[in-house]
């Protein structure tokens, strides 16, 4: 179970990106986080595995407070949190297999990592997972020889290699064509239920969020303004989240209704 409470993040002295966010994710549920760019989705996800340092607040994963961790303890916590990235973030010049095994870096020694002598169980697991998503035949190909969808599959397998207790996906489909992105979303959904893994997906595409997730969280200006089942996510919620985003004076508008009007005017 993941419990986020009062999570705040501000860069320097700017307006906070996250303003006291509260979120509770039960085990084995797929949650979509929607919001316009700049709403703080990516920052929130990165606060969970501490790629971004939260300014204040608390994040508790399965009973462990993540915000206070340092050094080795932080790395041990991170290896329990898999992450899938928008730009795949693969190491292009290494093979697919090396990219996949890189998911085990939190578990192996530096010597094992450099000499690529990973334990047999890791290699078994890598092959099993790669077969599951259909990229096993590329094991010895360089990562940059693959197509976008295949690369994201490598990214997913790398995250799963960590044996995560939580999977974070930061716009996993934003760099893919519509058909491939459907496939990746389907994959994430079915993997979540197979491995009974809580998954947080940042996503721009509301239709996909409604189709493939069980719960939608809407962010705007670092605040949660919607939390509910996909069926409850109606026009009104959509406007509240995205409305008036293009208006330049938008940052000052506080209430969602006000910005909605601006949005309509703009259109």
């Amino acid at each position, binding site marked *: 179970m993941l419990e986020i409470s009062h999570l705040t993040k501000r860069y320097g002295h700017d307006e906070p990106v996250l303003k006291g966010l509260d979120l509770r994710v039960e085990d084995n549920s797929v949650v979509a986080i929607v919001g316009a760019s700049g709403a703080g989705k990516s920052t929130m996800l990165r606060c969970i595995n501490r790629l971004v340092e939260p300014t204040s607040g608390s994040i508790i994963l399965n009973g462990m407070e993540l915000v206070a961790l340092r050094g080795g303890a932080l790395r041990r916590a991170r290896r329990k949190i898999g992450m899938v990235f928008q730009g795949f973030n693969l190491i292009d010049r290494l093979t697919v297999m090396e990219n996949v095994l890189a998911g085990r870096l939190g578990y192996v020694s530096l010597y094992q990592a450099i000499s690529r002598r990973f334990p*047999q169980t890791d290699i078994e697991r890598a*092959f099993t997972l790669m077969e599951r998503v259909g990229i096993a035949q590329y094991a010895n190909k360089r990562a940059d020889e693959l197509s976008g969808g295949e690369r994201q599959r490598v990214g997913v397998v790398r995250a799963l290699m960590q044996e995560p207790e939580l999977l974070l996906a930061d716009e996993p489909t934003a760099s893919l064509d519509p058909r491939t992105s459907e496939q990746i979303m389907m994959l994430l959904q079915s993997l979540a239920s197979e491995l009974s893994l809580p998954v947080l997906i940042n996503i721009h595409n509301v239709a996909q969020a409604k189709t493939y997730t069980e719960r939608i969280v809407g962010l705007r200006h670092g605040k949660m303004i919607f939390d509910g089942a996909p069926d409850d996510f109606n026009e009104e919620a959509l406007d509240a989240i995205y409305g008036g985003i293009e208006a330049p004076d938008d940052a000052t508008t506080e209430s969602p209704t006000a910005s909605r009007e601006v949005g309509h005017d703009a259109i």
Partner: protein
Amino acid sequence: MTRSETSAPATPRTWRKPPFIANPLLRYGLLAVLVIYLVWAFGSLPFNWARISEGLPRAARIFGGGFPPSFERFDLLLTGFKESLQIAVLATLLGVLLSIPFAVMAARNVAPLPVYFLGRAVIILSRSFHPVIVAILFVAAVGFGPLAGILTLTLYSIGFVGKLLAEEIEEIDWGQVEAMKATGAGYFAILVYAVFPQILPRQVGLSMYQLDSNLRASAVVGIVGAGGIGGTLMNAFGRYDYAFAFAILLVIIAVILISEGVSGWVRKKIW
């Protein structure tokens, strides 16, 4: 049936990183060649360990004698630098001007074949020799002093600027040349109107770069007697006047940093 056979992991599946060089014979062959080379190279070099162990206290003495650097003979240092600067300026000017005809000669697309070979040969020759070797020859030919330095660095500039400029000419937009040909222009008119305008920005940038580069080189050609600060440095070392030598070194470093900064700034301005 066959499908289940292939997908069933009968034996534990292993994975090794595919080696950098696929062919094992070549891989171990290259490794062996490398080891043999290293053994040979280290073995054949005459290292005199006794002298090396003597060297460390001597290093301490040299650095001890060198600090603090002495600026007592500042006017000598100034004269040396003035001469280095003059050598660099004149050599850059001559070199950059002369590099244009040589670049034209060494560009395959504008020069006839025999001329091309001649141009290439001049450029290859002047690039093969380190400026210090050229300097020592010019010192032998025209005597000690800045003249040898200027001749050396002029040749050095022709080699460097000429090569890059020739490559630039080979890559010009040929359409402009054809347009000039269509107007009935002669060979030199085409050069002036269709070729030079395309390479001029590059030439100005290269000249600034070469001025910086010549200033660096002018500090060392003096070591073999071709004028400039290098000679002053060599003398200081020869008289074991390490305090003055280190003072010269510090100033050389400062001047080079300044010149690098200025040359970089000008090149950024131009482009």
